[in-house]
């Protein structure tokens, strides 16, 4: 049974920043891509430079262990297609929508797993299968957890951590 540890007060420091660091490692290690944190102003500027109506994908991975929560990665679908092509070695125009969604889920899974392994190697977590959905582009930090903007290949993406219970109750 998980103990009621707040995601914002985990041992080892800022969980969201550590999740972002994990995504950087995944991007560089498996995707030959470049990810970095960015401040709110840059994130807003990158959003403003894109088509407001473009589809986004959101992939959530629930984790259960000494503490539990949900890690969510949101990114423009066009970026997901490019990254999926890089990862799979297939041409972007040959990718089916299901492949792109599957890849997006695996990307969130790898980031979440890399974060937990790197930050809490002596602990044991179970990761649930990723849930991928079409999303509207984010407008900023929302919900019961915490979120942060990043860039991936100079496109805006958003990472979020939230308690398993969407109301934030433990």
């Amino acid at each position: 049974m998980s103990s009621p540890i707040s995601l914002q007060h985990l041992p080892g420091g800022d969980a969201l920043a550590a999740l972002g660091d994990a995504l950087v490692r995944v991007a560089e290690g498996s995707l030959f891509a470049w990810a970095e944190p960015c401040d709110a102003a840059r994130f807003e500027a990158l959003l403003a430079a894109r088509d407001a109506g473009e589809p986004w994908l959101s992939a959530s991975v629930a984790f259960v262990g000494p503490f539990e929560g949900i890690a969510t990665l949101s990114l423009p679908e066009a970026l997901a297609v490019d990254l999926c092509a890089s990862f799979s070695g297939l041409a972007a125009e040959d990718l089916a929508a299901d492949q792109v969604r599957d890849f997006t889920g695996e990307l969130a899974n790898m980031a979440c797993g890399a974060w937990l392994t790197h930050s809490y190697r002596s602990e044991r977590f179970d990761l649930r299968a990723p849930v991928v959905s079409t999303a509207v582009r984010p407008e900023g930090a929302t919900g019961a957890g915490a979120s942060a903007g990043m860039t991936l290949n100079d496109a805006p993406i958003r990472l979020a951590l939230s308690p398993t219970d969407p109301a934030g109750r433990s």
Partner: protein
Amino acid sequence: MEPVSAEAAPEAAPNILIVDDSATMRAMIKRVAALAGVPVGTIFEAANGQEALGVLDRHPVQFVFTDINMPVMTGTELLRAMQDREEWRDVVRIVISTDGSDSRRMEAADLNVRMYVEKPFRPEVMRDVLSNLTPAPAGR
């Protein structure tokens, strides 16, 4: 899911079973295995441990690359089931997982896992794994 069979392969090249709930990850591992420069026989795929057991029942397999966290039947459950079957005793087990925790690694070692690869991994890591575990082709 029906296993996918690769092209005809040289005699004695090991057959490989890739077990991962992500089709994209299976395709990536399969591609890297094919490009690794080592002899590889038929490459089978399964989306979870239960499907993997079905493949093992029907086909000779020398290498199993398995994820840990999967729906239906996890990689750990698959490895435990393999322990119970004498005919699968010599199948080489390799874990490929985002979960690299100490306890998971120790558990894998107890289940006769030869190598543990953490995701994300670079393609050359998979090449090195296959090179270390497969016999060198004649003349190499």
